């Protein structure tokens, strides 16, 4: 029981570290908040909305995302997010870092 809680906390920390890369990579095409949540979930990354929305705002304030409010197909207004040119550059760099990290970790864990 005690271990379960420890593992859960550690997994949460791990996930929090990678969520920015996951969001940037998914926003190559426009998504609104809820569709992004579902897309992450479909990829096996369950993210809480209270984690995702503040993260989206932070990435936008850092210039890595762009967003605008739009009404598509007469639905309700939704805020659509997409990666910015600066975000693409950062993502490319992060992908390299990620590859190096996973390689190191695989060596370490094997």
């Amino acid at each position, binding site marked *: 029981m005690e271990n379960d809680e420890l593992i859960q906390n550690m997994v949460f920390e791990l996930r929090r570290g990678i969520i920015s890369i996951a969001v940037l990579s998914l926003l190559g095409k426009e998504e*609104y*908040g*809820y569709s992004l949540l579902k897309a992450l979930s479909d990829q096996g990354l369950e993210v809480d*909305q*209270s*984690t995702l*929305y503040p993260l989206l*705002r932070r990435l936008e304030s850092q210039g890595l995302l762009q967003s605008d409010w739009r009404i598509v197909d007469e639905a309700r207004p939704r*805020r659509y997010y997409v990666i910015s040119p600066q975000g693409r550059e950062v993502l490319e760099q992060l992908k390299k870092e990620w590859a190096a990290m996973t390689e190191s970790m695989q060596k370490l864990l094997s």
Partner: protein
Amino acid sequence: MNLIEKYAVEVGKYLPSRNRADIEAEIRSTLEDMLEERAQAPNADREALTLQLLKEYGAPRKVAESYGAVQYLIGPRLYPIFEMVLKIVAAVLLGVGLLGFGVNAVRMDMAGPALVHALGKLFVDSFGGVMMAFGNIVLVFAILERVLPLSDQKDLTDEWEPTDLAKEQDPDRTKISDLIAEIVFTIIFLALFNLYPQYVGIVIFNDNQWTFIPVLTESFFRYMPWINLLWALQVGLDVWLLRKGMWDVATRLINLAFKLGSIGLAYAMLIGPAIIKVNTESLAGTSLAEVARELSPLSQFILIPFLIAMIIVPVVEIVQTVVYLVRRRPPAPFPVK
């Protein structure tokens, strides 16, 4: 207003006003998307689903906190200065209170229960005034917290370097704590002289009660427009310096002009009619009349050295500034390592 709308507004209550409408709209939009998806099932009870959805989304305050919306009345960057100012004011009030009490205790030859009784009455009578002073300080800092630019938080961020500790202080860099202390004390004195001049005076223990006697004369209030102008301009300059973070020749010259103004004001007060006086006329016929007559010359005896200091201190500062301005080297046209 439906429940989702009410929920979004409730979250908004805990958010800073600049982001409130935007975050509220996003929460509303997301919740409606989530509800729409869940309500597609046949025989879905929208009301029950809405309640369940809001429960899952979380308590409004917690949701607001996830946006980093914790708001301070006085935040971490100003708190140490706030604490310092509060301690100074508390020490001054305590010092003045005890001095007044001591003088009265000796004068009335108080001892034993009478002394304890007088001290208790002083504490009760001055409680309201002390609370008002502390309340004004909190108010001034709460305003500063909202008007000062975020760049003042630089030393709280990762940009801080331990090697900065070894560097000599740049004489042109403004000292935030000094400026804030000057702003706060100037505003406190402006409020005191303009709104509560009746509280500037002395307390006398007589006939088993503390009596407060205001000492500012009509002559003092003739100087008030000049005092207000000079101090308001000084606060304006301090706020400007807080925003800029650096002294330059222009701000130093403006500050010199203010110092000359305060010297002129102190000189006019020194040679003009008395600005403080224990009003013996208003106390005529009371048991305090004799005491007031004794204290009247004493008040001038305290005031004159104070006004002389108000002239000498700015003169020294002016000389220091002029010497600095003459000796300072112009900035290099290229970065110096």
